[in-house]
């Protein structure tokens, strides 16, 4: 598979960080970057490659988080097993929401609306249902053993989330190369034309949404295990839906490394904002919102798109398309 080398190289390089520093600040920062990169990679498959913009990926993140936590706390299920079940549960929720909305023919803003509504319904249910701890939330009992997926230091968590990001990168790269990936991009570019050529567009979108939801749910499972506490507004809150789409859009939708690049930029900006003004609630999100608008306005293809434009510009000026021919659909 082409493109495997940069992925393995990047992950291996990042994997050495805990060997160089044991600074909790650095590791914690990178763990959060990877978490958003993973959640964003899920969004990227459906939104970036498939063109279906979800505003409710919190539905999958929250499901992963709650399933992991509730299985452990209430049913004594092993944490590793709970993690796996959480990912599957996220995929099932994705498939269910996808089946309902794609069969009803929802696209564009309607799809964004219905995903948002599903996430909100789940948030309300989680904030009243006894099994989720209702308004109090769910606390995972402290049990610092590797069998319980809890560790004394941050390094193992770092490697786990980096490993998950690595798997998601390889998965997305493999999908890019596959027939399914080609169908998915065809759906994004022109759904009617893809349908006319015999692509089962509903099945393709449904498949993408299921995998997308499972990837994002893995982020939720990790969140629950890392912080050991979740409540309805964390797990199903709109903040995670926003971060899920922010990372790939800033990094570059429909590119393998876009979500990782975007997550790095977003989290760095958020930290700089906190550093500049003290930890004021809301400020980091103000910055994110401004960056989102600015990126859509000046670099619609994100950082990855900008980089590839620059490379094309400098390496082969003769074959570079003039800007007027690029992405200009009136």
């Amino acid at each position: 598979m082409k493109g495997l080398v940069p992925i393995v190289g990047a992950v291996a390089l990042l994997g050495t960080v805990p060997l160089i520093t044991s600074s909790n600040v650095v590791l914690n920062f990178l763990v959060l970057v990877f978490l958003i990169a993973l959640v964003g990679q899920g969004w990227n498959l459906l939104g970036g490659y498939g063109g279906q913009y979800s505003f409710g990926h919190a539905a999958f993140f929250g499901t992963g988080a709650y399933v992991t936590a509730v299985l452990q706390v209430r049913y004594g299920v092993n944490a590793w097993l709970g993690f796996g079940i959480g990912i599957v549960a996220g995929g099932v929720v994705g498939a269910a929401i996808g089946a309902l909305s794609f069969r009803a023919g929802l696209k564009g803003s309607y799809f964004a609306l219905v995903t948002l509504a599903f996430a909100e319904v789940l948030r309300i249910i989680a904030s009243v249902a006894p099994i989720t701890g209702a308004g109090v939330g769910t606390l995972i009992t402290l049990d610092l053993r590797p069998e319980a997926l809890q560790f004394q230091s941050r390094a193992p968590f770092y490697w786990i989330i980096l490993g998950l990001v690595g798997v998601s990168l390889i998965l997305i790269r493999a999908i890019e190369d596959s027939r399914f990936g080609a169908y998915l991009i065809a759906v994004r570019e022109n759904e009617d034309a893809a349908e006319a050529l015999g692509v089962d567009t509903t099945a393709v979108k449904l498949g993408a949404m299921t995998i997308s939801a499972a990837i994002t749910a893995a982020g939720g499972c990790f969140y629950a295990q890392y912080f050991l506490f979740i409540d309805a507004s964390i797990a199903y809150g709109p903040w995670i839906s926003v971060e899920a789409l922010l990372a790939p859009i800033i990094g570059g939708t429909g590119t393998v490394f876009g979500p990782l690049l975007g997550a790095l930029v977003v989290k760095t900006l958020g930290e700089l904002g906190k550093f500049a003004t003290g930890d004021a609630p809301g400020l980091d999100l103000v910055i994110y919102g401004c960056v989102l608008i600015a990126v859509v306005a000046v670099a619609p293809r994100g950082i990855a798109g900008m980089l590839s434009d620059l490379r094309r510009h400098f390496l082969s000026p003769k074959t570079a398309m003039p800007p007027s021919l690029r992405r200009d659909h009136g």
Partner: protein
Amino acid sequence: MFSADILIPAVLNGLVTGAVYALVALGLTLIYGVLHIINFAHGALLTAAMFAAVFAYKLLGLDPYAAAIFLTPFFFLLGYGLQRFVIGPAAHGEDRNILLVTLGLAVVIENALLYAFRADTRTINLPYAFDVIEVGVTFLAVPRVIAFIVVFAVALALWLILRWTDTGKAIRAVSKEKLGAELSGIDVAHIYAVTFGLGTACLAIAACLLIPIYYVSPNVGDAFVLIAFTIVVLGGMGSVAGALIGGLFIGVVESLSGFYLGESLGQIGIFAMFILVLLLRPSGLFGVRT
């Protein structure tokens, strides 16, 4: 439990609340009908307008109904400017980009308010807030009755603008056939911005009607806008009459389900209906299937 003595007041209260919902939905549906986008910043703009009304009262001593006279043109200009100078240029004419830009605006406005005013809820105490008038078998709060009447006046004014003024005709032309309108010499970017301004101005009026009876906090708009989405989808995207009827209907449904099921389950009822309508009939009950 189902006796008329209980049912009629619940329905009347629902109708009165529903009128304000309808006004919020009216702005949303107007913008959708012309620009064919869902304005995800609608709730945040409503919150901003409510904060403006609270501060107009606290700092300047302006009664919310008087403040509406100043806030409405101000929010019209704000909406005009947002569409003309932020959303329009940033979106490059692509629907997906418009979704993202309005979402970005919502995030910025809501969190700027959170940063500036913290998560506290604020209310203002008006001398007439608890005055009631007798309507048939029940009593209704005066501010609610005022709101009900004003909403219908605004809807009528909006209809007259759209029906009889040159700008209104241009708005309808752009909503029907953008390219044709452009070829006939209509400045589409200007009309888009005017429409966005009108939709935002509706929010300023809604905010001034809400402040006497409601609280404000940085995310108060979310609750209203999700209800407004439901109304707009129910009434048919872009239909002014649909928004009015849908708003009243949702108000009654909320009032009755809150009465019989309790507060939080009543909320789910609205979402459940929203999802059902989206899935079964996305063009709405009054809309034309496209």
